[in-house]
């Protein structure tokens, strides 16, 4: 692959670089094991390991993923381009619209605006992991029932924002739903139906 990192000169003489030599994980490979993680070397005062490529592991939708990520790679890039989980969308790519919202350890985050290395060790949930087999998550079902979408491009982000909201607040008021979804933009403008869907899903979840 063309993405094998070059060794770069350290900017600080007291830093040392440790590049992972194993090469990048192929697209679509979700693997439990990649061979041995390089052992951190002991560091003296003022010394710090820095990586041009870092082996990270996290779970996505319950599956463990181990891969070597460049520090500049965003979580969204890793999800979409390397794990082929294209549910989360690239819309603004600046943390301004919520189209890439996923749950990181149960909290909503913008995957486009978080480095993959920041997700090291985390538990990530994307739209692909919401349903259990054929059974849709109540939030998904409610979006269908209430027509809580139009073009559907922002929908995965809204679904995760809604799931994140309902995990924190089982009985949200109308205003709490709005505030909870305030970080997501639906350019088709179907917010009113999205609220209705979230309200309906909350009801279903409460009833169990």
């Amino acid at each position, binding site marked *: 692959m063309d993405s094998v*990192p070059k060794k*770069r000169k*350290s*900017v*600080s003489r*007291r*830093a040392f*670089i440790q590049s992972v030599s194993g090469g990048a994980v192929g697209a679509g490979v979700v693997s439990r094991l990649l061979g041995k993680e390089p052992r951190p070397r002991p*560091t003296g*005062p*003022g*010394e*710090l*390991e*820095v*990586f*041009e490529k*870092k082996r990270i592991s996290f779970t996505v939708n319950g599956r463990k993923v181990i891969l070597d990520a*460049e*520090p*500049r790679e*965003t979580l969204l890039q890793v999800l979409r381009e390397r794990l082929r989980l294209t549910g989360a969308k690239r819309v603004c*790519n*600046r*943390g*301004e619209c*919520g189209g890439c*919202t996923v749950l*990181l350890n149960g*909290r*909503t*985050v*913008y995957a486009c*605006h*978080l*480095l993959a*290395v*920041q997700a090291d060790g985390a538990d990530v949930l994307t739209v692909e992991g919401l349903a259990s087999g054929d059974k849709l998550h109540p939030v998904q079902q409610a979006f269908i029932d209430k027509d809580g979408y139009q073009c559907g491009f922002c929908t995965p982000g809204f679904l995760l*924002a809604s799931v*994140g*909201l309902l995990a924190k607040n089982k009985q949200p008021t109308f205003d709490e739903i*709005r*505030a*909870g979804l*305030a*970080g997501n933009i639906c350019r088709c403008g179907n917010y009113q139906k999205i609220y209705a869907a979230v309200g309906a899903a909350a009801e279903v979840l409460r009833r169990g």
Partner: protein
Amino acid sequence: MKNFQYGKPASLEQAAAFLGPGDPNVFVMGGGTDLLGEIKEGLVEPAVVIDLKAVPGLAYIKKDKDGVAIGALTTIADLAEDPGIQKDYRVLHEAAAVVASPQLRNVGTVGGNLCQRPRCWYYRDARIVCNKKGGVKCYAEKGRNKYHAVFAGGLCWAVYPSDLAPALIALDAKAVILSAKGERTVPLAEFYMPPIVNVRKENVLNGQEIVKEVRVPQAKANEKSAYLKFIERGSWDFAVVSAAVKAVLSGTTIENIRIVCGGVAPVPWRMTKAEEALKGRKATEAAARQAAKSALKDASPLAENGYKIELLETIIARAVGSLGK
């Protein structure tokens, strides 16, 4: 976006030691929500990014007899949801609750918020080399400036965008700053620097230093505070103007008051004249409006941002007026 090297320090001391040589290409990162934006836009090209979130034990809100200590890596969401903060420091709670969006509050940190860079659209466009980026002029001064400063501009008319900074200054909070040489404590009121001191940066950190903690003094029994932020749309917006107020009241009479405004100057802007004028007055909208009006005579608006003066008068008045409620 160029790649960079990434380090996860085991301790803040280790990070500080690494920053020791003062290399301008080494950046520390909290949640990274601001830094990543700067990297993506090509405004900075770090050689190394040090991830402070990797350091254990820096996210905390601890009460003690002196007040409350807030770890720099505390997320803004945790700050906004903390019941103790909500009870004792309304201004801080209200400011944290309206930062950006839920997703960014979940990632963004207190330290990062206090150190964020301006949002001026000329500054954020890598193609435009303004004073802040080593150029020879401020493009906003005679350009499009509806969101720009009405105080203390000159070399740079970008406003300081933080919501937490005005609130914490109103509360007389201090920043605990760590470097390889040790710790120092700086009142947040003295943490920010206007462009005339150094147009290239906004605070006193010297490139080797890290904000470690924020300390807020014990709230007095008769202390009231509030944060009011005016934004154009309903969410995910930086303040057009904002006002953080904290007063010590005797009944409804103001013994003393702090008024710190956001969105109106390159640094959080203290309205000292209005503070003076309000001493001994009732904490009412009318009194505050009168005080603000005369203090705002010092403003120097640009072609498109004169409305901010009118807005600020109202926002200050309403924030002060809400103290008694």
